[in-house]
């Protein structure tokens, strides 16, 4: 009896230690980046790093924002992210619905195929794509880039929306049909409102994915850089304050998004609607 008790305490302590280590491992850099971004430009170079910015200043952050090309790239990033997010949901959600609702031949194979596209390395994809885009006169356009981002995010959009739709009981749609709806009106009046939070989460997921995507952005654009592409290109030659502030600026949407989507990420593969 006593032995079991002791081993349980040890087990629990171990779990907590590992959990805390993991959290520190993830959060510490984020915290330091935030501290540095709100220090003065000279404060960034102080070592050891202070736990709080002294004094608090927006100097570093403003320096980054006002650097050449940053605002234009940020705008590009937003356009690319929003475009790809809309395209992905328009194309992906119906596929997700089909996977969730209908049993058809090769459904599992289709699922597997959808996931396996993720295994295709972006490096191999991007170079020939750049060549093709040049041929078609689509090179260095943020809309071409949005198409690529759409393609990248589609598999996950299909899977996530699939699980969202699977979380809306089929009974509800059938009940709507017995009460006078056809397939489309049942979807619009019942399934869609219930799936909406989950769909919004999937959409935000795509936004963040596109916002952070750097590889194809670097290869496929030259003058019309997105923000990550710009930051990556200028990282080696930029001063520390620029790097810290840039990092925070890139992080922010993801963090905001995480707070939004937490609930859905936790039960991504389970029931989404309560």
């Amino acid at each position, binding site marked *: 009896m006593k032995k079991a008790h002791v081993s349980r305490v040890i087990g629990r302590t171990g779990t907590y230690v590992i959990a805390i280590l993991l959290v520190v491992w993830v959060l510490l850099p984020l915290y330091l980046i935030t501290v540095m971004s709100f220090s003065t430009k000279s404060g960034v170079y102080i070592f050891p790093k202070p736990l709080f910015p002294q004094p608090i200043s927006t100097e570093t952050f403003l320096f980054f924002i006002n650097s050449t090309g940053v605002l234009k790239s940020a705008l590009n990033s937003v356009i690319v992210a929003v475009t790809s997010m809309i395209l992905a949901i328009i194309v992906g959600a119906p596929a997700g619905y089909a996977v969730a609702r209908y049993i058809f031949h090769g459904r599992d194979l289709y699922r597997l195929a959808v996931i396996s596209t993720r295994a295709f390395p972006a490096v191999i994809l991007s170079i020939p794509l750049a060549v093709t885009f040049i041929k078609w006169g689509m090179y260095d356009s943020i809309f071409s880039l949005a198409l690529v981002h759409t393609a990248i995010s589609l598999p996950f959009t299909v899977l996530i929306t699939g699980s969202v739709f699977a979380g809306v009981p089929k*009974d509800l749609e059938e*009940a709507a*049909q*017995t*009460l*006078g*709806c056809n397939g489309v009106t049942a979807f619009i009046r019942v399934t869609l409102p*219930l799936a909406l939070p989950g769909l919004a989460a999937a959409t935000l997921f795509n936004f963040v994915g596109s916002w952070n995507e750097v590889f194809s952005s670097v290869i496929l654009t030259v003058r019309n850089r997105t923000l990550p592409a710009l930051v990556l290109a200028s990282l080696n030659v930029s001063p520390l304050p620029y790097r810290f502030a840039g990092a925070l600026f890139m992080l922010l949407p993801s963090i905001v998004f995480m707070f939004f989507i937490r609930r859905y990420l936790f039960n991504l593969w389970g029931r989404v609607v309560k």
Partner: protein
Amino acid sequence: MAEIHINEVRKTFGKVVAVNNIELTIHDHEFMVLLGPSGCGKTTLLRCLAGLEDVDSGRIFINKEDITEYPPRSRHISMVFQSYAVFPHLNIFENIAFGLRMQHLPNSEIKKRVESSAEMLQIENLLDRYPAQISGGQRQRVAVARAITVQAEVLLMDEPLSNLDALLRLEMRAELKRLIKELQTTVVYVTHDQVEALGLGDRIAVMKNGNLLQVDAPLIIYDHPANAFIGGFIGNPPMNFLPAVIDDRGIHVEETTLTLDLLPKGFKRSGSTQNIKIGIRAENIKILPSSEKNALKGKILVVEPLGSTNLLTVILGNERIKVNTHPDEIYLTGGEIWLQMASNKINWMDAETGNTLA
């Protein structure tokens, strides 16, 4: 007016035959219960009626109109689901009003009809709540209210009471019966609960493995099941079965020989000796203190006082049977008794097929 005619309907899922060429007519205003163990195809048949499943072959008619190819919304039906399927994003008023909104009725009419259905089911004080804020029993009432508000000609119910706790189920069962009587719609009601089926139905259709075994009034099904399966499935305790042999000298049950005049008039014997099964319900056996004509000798194995009855388990040779007795009659375990079966309640069944012979 709604008469349903199911004509040779067949439905398979892969290799499983869920509904096997079923032929059934449900009369206008009739409360028809589809009863059977889980997996017998009763829900599938109901979903075929609703238009939620396509049939493989056969036709379905409502009022002589062939609705086999119609979508659910064109069939003049409404349905109560086992899960209730109450829309979580709409409040109770809008849930009940859903069908009327789809018919684009004026708001005043919708309000009137929703309130009247809500009143019938005593949920008028819940109309502005959301499904998450009410109990399971109340959600069940909402589901029924939503189905009756559209005033469809046929009301389909798929195990509507199975998710309620026992007490609530008892209460709701009686209320449903009263409500349906008032509404005068044709009802098809699916259940695996034989008590529900006996209590609610005008007629019961017993199904097994996709086949229709018997369609009859509840008490006929109870007293004279078409085969041993139905006798064992319906009733608590299930029907007793005793193997017996008929020959010219009488009916031999264990060591006792009963006289041939116990056989019903129309009984046709198949040969000089015939193996049969006697089916008799626990309450149709009389206990005698001493030997009499056509009485079987037994020994009491267990006495279970159940309040309304004393349930005895009696050993009869190699067989065990259940006997219901009046609660005031005291019996002792191990005591020897004589059992006499009520001759008009005996079911004579084929020993091998279990089918009732007469």
